[in-house]
Every structure is written in C-alpha cells, then in structure tokens.
C-alpha cells in the first residue's frame, strides 16, 4: 500500500505540477498520505457541505459572542 501511494504521488505531482520528488524523505512522506485518505474515509458521509451561499467569514460572525 505504501509503495502504491508513493508511486501515485510521484506520478500525480509530476504530471499535474511538474514537481519531482526532491529527496528520499519526500517519498516517505508521500506514503504517509495514506493516513489522510484513511482520515477522510473515516468521516465520509458524516459531513455536510454549505448548501447556501455563505462562507467561513460568515460562520465566524455567526459564532461570535453576543452581549
């Protein structure tokens, strides 16, 4: 799985952004993307999109303390 992720990251970064792995550590951290994939899988279906025109700044205002 780790090797597969490394290869995927190298191919995607190279093809879409023209960025090559700069060092061995980059390949190790590329493999760690698996943990982000797992984190998204774990919460899939439990999150909702903003379905009205809004934004994070509006949410900050909505959540502030009211006197």
């Amino acid at each position, binding site marked *: 799985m780790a090797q597969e992720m490394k290869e995927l990251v190298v191919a995607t970064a190279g093809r879409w*952004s023209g960025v090559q792995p700069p060092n061995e550590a980059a390949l190790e951290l590329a493999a760690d993307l698996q943990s*982000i994939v797992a984190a998204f899988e*774990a919460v899939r279906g439990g999150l909702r999109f903003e379905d009205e025109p809004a934004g994070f700044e509006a949410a900050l205002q909505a959540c*502030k303390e009211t006197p």
Partner: protein
Amino acid sequence: MGATLVEDVDTLAGLSLVDAAAAVADGSISAVALTEACIARTRRLEPKVNSVIWLDEAGALEAAEAADAARRAGAALGPLHGVPMAHKDMYYKAGQRSSCGSAIRRDFRPTITATVLERLEGAGAVTFGGLNMAEFAQNPTGHNRHYGDCLNPWNEAHITGGSSSGSGAAVAARFAFMALGSDTGGSIRLPASACGVTGLKPTQTRVSRFGVMPLSFSCDNVGPLARSARDCARVMTVMAGHDPKDPTSAKEAVPDYEAALDGDLRGMRIGVPETFFLDGVAPSVLAAMETALDVLRGRGASVTRIKLPLIPELSACSSVVSRCEAAAIHGEWMREYPQDYAVHLSARLFPGYAIPATHYIEALSRRGPLLQEFCRAVFSEFDLLVTPTIATELPTRAETDIDHGPPGTAAKFMAVSNNTRLINYLGLPAISVPCGFDSLGLPVGLQIIGRPFAEARVMQAADAFQRDSDWHLRVPAL
C-alpha cells in the same frame, strides 16, 4: 562593558512593554536608552540564542531619537511610543531585506510595507531587527538549515518551537519587548510555550495580512509574542481591525483590549478537553496545567472536564488545507530550486501536489459548518477551553531533526503541533501563557481558546492567571 552598565542594560531590557512605554511617555527613560539597551543585550547574548537575522541599529536609533524629540516637543504619543521591537523576518518593509528564513529569499527586498508594521510604527514603536524563523514559516520546531537553528534560551539542546522561533527566543532573552510572529498551525503559540513567553493567535481575519509572507491563505494569522497578556493586549489594540489592503480582514470593531483585563473571572466557564488534547500528555505538563487551573479557579472560574466533538472530522479536514495552499504557493520554486529548500521542507511540500482538489474544496467548504457545529456544542456550555499548548515534554533539536534523524523522527516533529493545528482550521483565537516547567527544566505553556473574536476574554483569563503566578516573569540565565 562594565558590570554596572550591563546591569543597567538588563534592567531596562527587563521591563514589560507596557512599563517601558509608560516610562518613555513620562520621560523617566528615553527611547534612545531603551533601544540602546535592547541592541546591547542582543549583541552580547545573541551567540547563545541565534535569534536574529539582521539588525538595523542606525535606523532604530534614528527612530528612537525622533521619538524622544517628539515627546520633548509635546506631541501626542502613541501607545507604543519609543518601544523597541524586532519581528519574524517575513514582515515586508519597502526596501528592507526580508529573508523569510530561506535561501531562496536571502536577498529579497519587497516594495511594499506590511500594514501591521505601519500600525505599530504609527503608534510609536521602534523596529530594530528581523528575527530567525523556520524556513518559509514551515516547521513547528525552529530548525533552520540556512541561518542555523534558533537556540532555546532555557537550554540550547531543545527546540525553540516554530515557526516563529526567533520571536519566542528574542522575547524570552529580553532582546525585544515584543516580536510579531505568524501562526498557521501553531507558529506563535508553540515558540511562546517552548520559550516561556506569552503569544496570541487572533481570530482568523482579525489582523491584516497585507505585506506578510503567505504560507496558507486560509489559515495564516499575525499576532504578538510578548512578556505578558497585558503586553499582547496593548499591541492587539494597535494592530487589529479592517485593512482595505487586505480584503479578507474583518470589519469587526476593535475593543480596547487592555480595558478588559480586570482580573475578575467570576462566572467564567472553562472546559478542559479530556480527549485528544491530553493524548500522551507528560505527567509534568499535566501537573503544571492542573496547578494553573487552580489559579484560574481562585479567580472565580469554574472548571469542567469535557469530551470535545468532531475531532475526527476536524483532523481530516485540517490536514489538507494548509498543505495544498503551501504547495501551490511554492510551486514555481519547487520546480526550479528544489535543492534550495531544507530536506524536511521540500519533503513536506511534495505530497501536497498529489492531494485531489476535491478534498481541498471539501475541507474548505466544510470549515464553516464545522465551526458552527463546534461552537454550538462547546461554547454554549463554556466560555473558554484550556489545554496544554504542547502536551509532551519539550523535545531536543536532535530528536526532531528530520533532515538528519532516523526513521520515526517525523512523528516526533509533527507531534509538537498536535494541540494547535485544529484551532487554525477552526479560526479561533488562542493564547499560550507560561505555566511552569517540565521535568527537564523547559517551559510549559497553557493554551486558552475562545470563540471567534473573543480575544478580549482570552486575554482577560490569561492576565488573571498572570496576576497570581510569576512564570511569565522568569528569565533564562544566559
């Protein structure tokens, strides 16, 4: 320099920002004397700290002389009149070098000036230097291959915290009365904690970012590191507020933050998360936090253990936003000069080019709803959350040196910012105040978190704590 002169310098440099400003205002100390004291102490002790990238002694003394002349002429004085400061070397001043802690921008001289610098200097502050930092503000430890690691004034073997490493170390070492840091995942609070000073990350959008090196458009924040919550409050009253040059800055009115510092926490409801923020907590860190909570109770606050909601959701989404934005910002340089980055930095940037845009958009789109859900669940019951800023004992530079360390080093490196990253995704204000020392003799920080735009309440609690504790007054023996 003779012993008496050294003592004089150290006495002047040891004042708080608020006391220094008062002394300049009433004429008992000149701005020139303060500036000379800060520069002299910096020159004498900097080899033990490595917190400075550049000093502008002539420019600072010229500004200080002008400040003294204005006072003598009876001019109206700003709240920071004559107070010397130095800042993380990523705040642009037209024509002045701004290295961003990098080799790539070693000789970069911007053509614009950051709004926050204009506001600080407009209030009378004297800028005398640019401070060491993690390369492009991208590590939580303070390692820097190009300018040398910033050294923790309490023990040089240990990390300063990052990315505002020089800001934390220079304030702790009493080189500067205040230093700006920036905070995208903990970069103000971590060095504040590790160096034993007070550092505030404001609400997202609270302070202008015009003329400040970007790392993540969504999560970057500008804030002060200083010796006390009161010092931070003074600076925030000057800096905060809408800036037409930064259309993302909030139009929220700016209160007089110092006026809120009344020491009275009666009725204040504090929640202490039992989960996540205390995972792997060191006994010495936990003990320092418990003692601090007793101090807050003594001021009238109630303290309740709670289980925080949404941690898996926040963890998933927060892990994506700043990585994608940083990768995009650094795309050109990663194609052209990858060898000019430290290994740990280019290695961390690289995976960002392979995270699908749909995940980035998902994480951004859910930020508002998650914030609202979090606030409904938490801040309907509590006014503030309190956690350790760094849950573990402070690691050494060697233990967290990804560039040279063995496998597993990256995990220790990332663990440093475990308790701060989620707060940036939520955009909440948070302060770190010193609350003790770990078993190795390194400072421990207490993180106090509030709802959006509740900086006044956050600093009120921090100030109340500092009225009944003296951790913020401790000075490392250099």
